[in-house]
């Protein structure tokens, strides 16, 4: 073709584009809001045709730098609502599975390669809290808040990326995944709190216990048959009392007080309470009945016991003076901490692991601590932005020759 023909074609195209632009600018005024705003499909919609669940097949991957020499690392930049470390078998590499806030999408991170893969792209709108079973096959999600809450069991399939949902119609206060790959639920009734076990395979419930008050906090054990702890929700202005539930037996422990909250395992209980306008933390040895100062002052919700080493707990603590309105002010969000991680043990003195603010330069208000396989990794969530973090408690040293 000759050059003039190319030029003429180009001018025609430019002219057509100009006409389209002029038309769009002056004659194509949006008639309604649907034309003005894009539908981002993020839930809370008033569209009655929207079924609340959608599948997005955009299977993007990212990589977390696990080869970094830093022992403290941020694993996600997006807010999460639940996570677990799981291995397909004893010899396989541990994976971290987490559920994304808002969407309920599930991702896994390989702890060696750092590769992140999306496992479930099924959206559960307004996902607020999640628990994943240790085998990584089931996830329970709370969608929405208050009386509008829905509780959904999602069956995960890491291989196919498919997932299916099932709703549970119970007034659930809180829930936890157990070692048996079941879910432990606290259900509110008219004048009591009922502890139940839900088996997602058989879709069956079993009642574990009933405690005669409604505003209850439950500290679930790792397995169904472990000790679970219950107490009236705490406040610095009213007294709380600790009950241990094991099997069919509920026992009142000699632990009570204003602002009292607690976590425990089979051997000990870590609890804090207001005492003479001072907030203090204690360790109760269940066998001997002895009570000792823990060595640190912390809110027990910032502690977690090891599955493998019963006398070991990991706690987060901030070097600030905790006032008389603790823990209420922390619950309400008025107060936030920049925490350090500590090892608390009945066999050895309390030991500082890491000052997270000094190491990361970030203020990390630590919650939801979990210990990984062999207690090597400590995972936790920053309450300030709900991001997932890792601290390598025992770091593998690679020798380069």
């Amino acid at each position: 073709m000759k050059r003039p023909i190319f030029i003429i074609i180009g001018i025609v195209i430019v002219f057509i584009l100009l006409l389209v632009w002029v038309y769009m600018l002056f004659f194509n005024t949006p008639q309604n809001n649907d034309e003005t705003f894009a539908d981002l499909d993020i839930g809370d919609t008033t569209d009655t045709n929207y079924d609340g669940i959608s599948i997005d097949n955009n299977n993007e991957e990212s990589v977390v730098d696990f080869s970094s020499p830093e022992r403290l690392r941020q694993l996600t930049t997006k807010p999460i609502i639940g996570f677990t470390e799981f291995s397909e078998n004893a010899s396989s590499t541990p994976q971290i599975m987490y559920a994304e806030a808002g969407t309920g999408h599930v991702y896994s991170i390989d702890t060696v390669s750092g590769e992140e893969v999306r496992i479930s792209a099924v959206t559960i709108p307004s996902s607020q809290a999640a628990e994943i079973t240790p085998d990584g096959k089931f996830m329970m999600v709370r969608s929405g808040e208050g009386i509008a809450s829905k509780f959904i069991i999602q069956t995960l399939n890491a291989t196919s990326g498919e997932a299916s949902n099932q709703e549970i119609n119970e007034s659930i206060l809180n829930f936890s995944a157990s070692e048996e790959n079941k879910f432990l639920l606290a259900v509110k009734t008219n004048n009591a709190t009922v502890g139940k076990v839900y088996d997602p395979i058989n879709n069956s419930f079993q009642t574990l216990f009933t405690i005669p008050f409604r505003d209850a906090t439950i500290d679930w054990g790792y397995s169904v048959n472990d000790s679970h702890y219950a107490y009236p929700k705490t406040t610095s202005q009213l007294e709380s009392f600790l009950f241990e539930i094991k099997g069919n037996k509920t026992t009142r422990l000699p632990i009570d007080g204003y602002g009292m909250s607690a976590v425990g395992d089979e051997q000990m209980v870590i609890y804090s309470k207001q005492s003479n306008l001072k907030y203090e933390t204690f360790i109760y040895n269940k066998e001997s009945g002895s009570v000792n100062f823990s060595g640190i002052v912390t809110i027990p919700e910032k502690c977690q016991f090891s599955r493998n080493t019963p006398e070991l707990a990991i706690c987060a603590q901030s070097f600030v003076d905790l006032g008389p309105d603790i823990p209420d002010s922390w619950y309400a969000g008025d107060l936030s901490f920049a925490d350090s991680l500590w090892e608390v043990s009945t066999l050895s003195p309390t030991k500082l692991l890491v000052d997270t603010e000094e190491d990361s330069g970030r203020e990390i208000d630590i919650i939801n601590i979990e210990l990984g396989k062999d207690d090597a990794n400590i995972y936790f969530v920053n309450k300030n932005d709900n991001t997932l973090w890792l601290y390598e408690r025992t770091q593998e040293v690679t020798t380069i020759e």
Partner: protein
Amino acid sequence: MRLLFIFTLLFTSLHINVAFAQLSSSITNPELAIELQPEFPRPGEIVTANLNDYSGGTYGANVNWALDGQQIPEASNQRSTKVTAGAVGVTQKIEVVLDTPQGGKVVLTKNITPVYLDIVVEPQTRVPNFYLGRALPSVGSTVNATALVSSDGFMNPDLVYTWRLNQKVLNGGPIRGLNQVSFTTPMGTEMSLHLQVTDLQGNVIAKRSVSIPSVSPKIRFYEINQLFGTSHRPISDSVALIGNSITVQAEPFNLDSRVYNDPDISEWKINGSSSGNIGGSPYEVTLQRVGVSGTSRLLFHVRDTKQVLQGANEGIQINF
């Protein structure tokens, strides 16, 4: 008339004599007993046992204390001793033996059976769902209280409960098996709830008193993200409107749940101008950026018109 006077005099003097006789009896025969402090201890609690002998009838006596038959040497010739209450539901016998100089012997005993009597106070007031703590009562709100008598597990229902709020006995008196009670929070910043638990024979098993605070409802503001839900950190004094709009939730902590669910007044104001409620939650407002940058004062007011102390009024600054 004279006869009437003599009759009245005789009748009055008879009554005076009876009164004097009673007074004299109580002075000459005081109770010689062991008094425990606290009267109904919890398991593991330190209990002080005092020997009460106001008559001096045991003057110069040797005093020997024993717990479950084991002598307490350090309490020898002491008028009080301290013991640690045992395990829950296990009875301990504390004994004091008085050997008088005249060769007499007086033995006094007292049993200690520690139980836990806990009162769980559950105010029916509002706190947000993400808040892990318990709500507090405010004037006019309902409070539910549950008594938990724990020995080995929770105790059987054949107990009689007597509840008293400040000076007022609730439910008209003792009621068998009624371990739960509801009452309305009275005026003032504090109230006292007293409970006595007895068995069917009238023996007191435990007593407990708790002081319950009454607070004013307080509003905190939280930003709502359409995707992630309500932020768990309140807006302190001001918030920056970064995008085109912001949704703010007002959370009236400790407001009576009935008022929260059906408030007489729930009003948002921007720079003093009321914002009409366009449906949806009265506790949420969405603000949209219009015009040039600046600041606005956002106020929220919620109140019950019948119980005016059931309400709160608070504001934040919006920078846009």
